[in-house]
């Protein structure tokens, strides 16, 4: 048995890390996030050189046919760099959905282009977790009507992948008649979400599968968000240790105070098991479908809690400096806040975990 990343996965991780540290340092994140936030084309094209846009696309369609664990390895690095790139929706979720539930024509139409890094597909499946503000999408006779909130990687989308109330997925091009979109802004300026309003929009459904595809997407999405949070937490812990080793008060580096050491040790102690949890969840998605949903729920809810703690504790270690914009620490703080809430906050996800295991009384 080997529980850990393969040699190839480590090489993948290192090359993504190198590419991000060259192309997406804090100054660049700041540039993208300030003013009207924009995704980083520079970072996207550097990641494109590594083949990442097509990593989840099957080889027969020009991709690399890699696993969700591979994608999680990448997502962790994106979180570590707080990279403003739309990787999740197009390159993981849409690629997965089309591969597993797309018709031959849909696959031939979209997958090779996704592998080339061309289209951006925003994924609107928030209502399969919980409906806020009464949002719901209904399919009727080939048309879609209703509202979906928090469509992921919204900005610059060429199409939306929308889940209806029955959990079926539909592709809606951005220029479809009857489609209106509204951008939402969140604490995290390195991501983008928005809402779609549909009025009898002619959409292309993916294959009928009784909602399995949407449930799997939600799983994959949660694992990738958990991996992102893992990387962002890692960055915040490193920054705290680093700062505590430099900053002096009372004639000592603050890292020599037991109180500060314990804050750092506590962060590490809670953070470290998340790594194995996220890897396991991604592996289960790839190899043990029976366990995948529960493992994804655990990964998502647990990293959400742990990294909320890490985000505030790392900020505390930095004192007043952590609260300012000067070190940019807040980009990771907010990234973690986003990862926690999207596709279900810890409470919602744990409720799903309980239901999955038959712990709740049948209604």
């Amino acid at each position: 048995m080997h529980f850990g990343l393969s040699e190839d996965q480590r090489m993948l991780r290192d090359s993504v890390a190198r590419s991000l540290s060259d192309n997406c340092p804090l100054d660049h994140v700041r540039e993208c996030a300030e003013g009207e936030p924009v995704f980083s084309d520079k970072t996207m094209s550097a990641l494109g050189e590594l083949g990442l846009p097509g990593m989840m696309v099957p080889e027969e369609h020009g991709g690399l046919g890699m696993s969700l664990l591979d994608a999680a390895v990448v997502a962790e690095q994106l979180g570590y760099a707080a990279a403003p790139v739309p990787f999740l929706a197009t390159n993981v979720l849409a690629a997965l959905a089309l591969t597993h539930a797309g018709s031959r024509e849909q696959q031939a139409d979209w997958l090779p282009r996704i592998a080339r890094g061309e289209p951006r597909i925003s994924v609107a499946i928030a209502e399969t977790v919980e409906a806020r503000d009464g949002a719901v999408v209904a399919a009727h006779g080939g048309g879609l009507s209703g509202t979906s909130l928090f469509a992921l990687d919204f900005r610059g989308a060429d199409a939306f992948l929308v889940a209806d109330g029955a959990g079926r997925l539909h592709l809606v091009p951005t220029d479809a008649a009857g489609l209106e979109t509204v951008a939402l802004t969140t604490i995290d300026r390195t991501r983008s979400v928005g809402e779609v309003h549909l009025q009898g929009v002619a959409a292309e459904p993916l294959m009928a599968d009784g909602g399995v595809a949407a449930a799997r997407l939600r799983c994959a999405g949660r694992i990738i968000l958990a991996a992102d949070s893992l990387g962002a937490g890692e960055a915040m812990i490193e920054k705290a240790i680093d700062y505590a080793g430099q900053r002096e008060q009372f004639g000592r580096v603050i890292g020599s105070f037991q109180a500060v050491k314990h804050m750092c040790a506590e962060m590490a102690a809670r953070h470290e098991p998340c790594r194995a949890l996220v890897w396991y969840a991604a592996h289960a998605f790839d190899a043990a479908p029976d366990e995948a949903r529960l493992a994804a729920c655990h990964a998502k809810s647990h990293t959400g809690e742990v990294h909320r703690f890490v985000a505030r504790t790392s900020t505390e270690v930095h004192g007043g400096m952590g609260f300012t914009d000067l070190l940019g620490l807040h980009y990771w703080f907010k990234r973690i806040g986003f990862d926690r809430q999207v596709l279900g906050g810890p409470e919602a996800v744990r409720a799903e975990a309980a239901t999955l295991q038959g712990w709740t009384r049948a209604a």
Partner: protein
Amino acid sequence: MDLEYGAEYDAFREEVRQFLEAHGHRAPAGQDRAARPSADAVKWQALLIEHGYTARTIPSEYGGYGAEPDILKSRIIAEEFSRAGIPGGLANQGISMLVPTLLELGTEEQKRRWIEPTLKGEIVWCQGYSEPGAGSDLAALKTSARVEGGEFVINGQKIWTSTAKQADMIFCLVRTEHEAPKHGGISYLIFSMDTPGIEVRPLKTMTGHAEFNETFFTEVRVPVDQIVGERGQGWFVANATLGHERSMLGDPDALENRLQALVNLMREERVGKDRAIDSPVLRDRLAALQAEVAAMKYNGMRILSNSLRGDPGGMAKLIVKLQSCELAHQISALAIDAMGEIGILYHGSPRERARGAWQRNYMFQLGLIIGGGTAQIQRNIIAERGLGMPREPRLPKPAAVERSAVADGRKQETA
């Protein structure tokens, strides 16, 4: 224990209610974090002072209402304003920190000159304590003043100065006795922010706003009588102010108001057809926070009650800043969780609730866990002063750690 209110207090409560009914509509809206009170807020403040609903026990010769301290009446005022959802009197660094310090330690002339306009909201103050090298170790401050021709001449830099951009005046710690030991060389000066030689540069924070500033002093000249306490006694005066700051940050009425806002939010916010408050999990957290807020409220009454008998407060007072700031942060955290994905909306987004106040508070209250003495420093104080535990031994100075060594060490372990 005697918590009977009695007939006098019932009448007083009725009076407060009638006041709120008659005048409540004149209260300013949305003034929460405005550094400089609006014209409406200044008028409202004057009306509240006139009726004794704020600055109640401050002597009238200094612009207060001049009532004898009476905790029950103070509680009734707080309760009725909170119930009506109407803002009470102004609470800023001048009113909550400087005024009580001047009442305790200022000269008669200083009290007459500064307290009244401060209470009225005409003078806004900022606090010039922290410096880049002196945060937790405040007594390490380096901003210095020499005496020249009847004036202090100040040079140096402060940081994290909240509201310095809007303030008229500053209360400021400077080193005047250069030969004296660390804590004995500091003086507490008050001066105008318009004095030549002061430069204020706003600092943006994680909330996206510039809640505080860097403040630079170059040959800033201040008359020698604008000192509170004696030369070299600044540390003592500063600690009096810090005590008041910690009480301000731990204000139980503010906690109660936030909790009530959270209850309202959780009643309105819906997941599908259910209200957030219908979720047993969220509701349990809400009730747990409510119990904690209640504990802090009664703890506050106990402190107040003891202080009227000359009791300094002891442990009940030492824990207020630590517990209340954490509690405020947790109230906002639950609000975010109850809103789900709506909870991360910010920057004026469509569907954002309460103009982003919950997220902003979540971050700002983390700032307050750090500001005014960090949580770790509070715990040191509780252990050493409150529990009489030994101080940490002074160790030889450990060397700073090489930056790359730290990162590399961890990197190797993450495979």
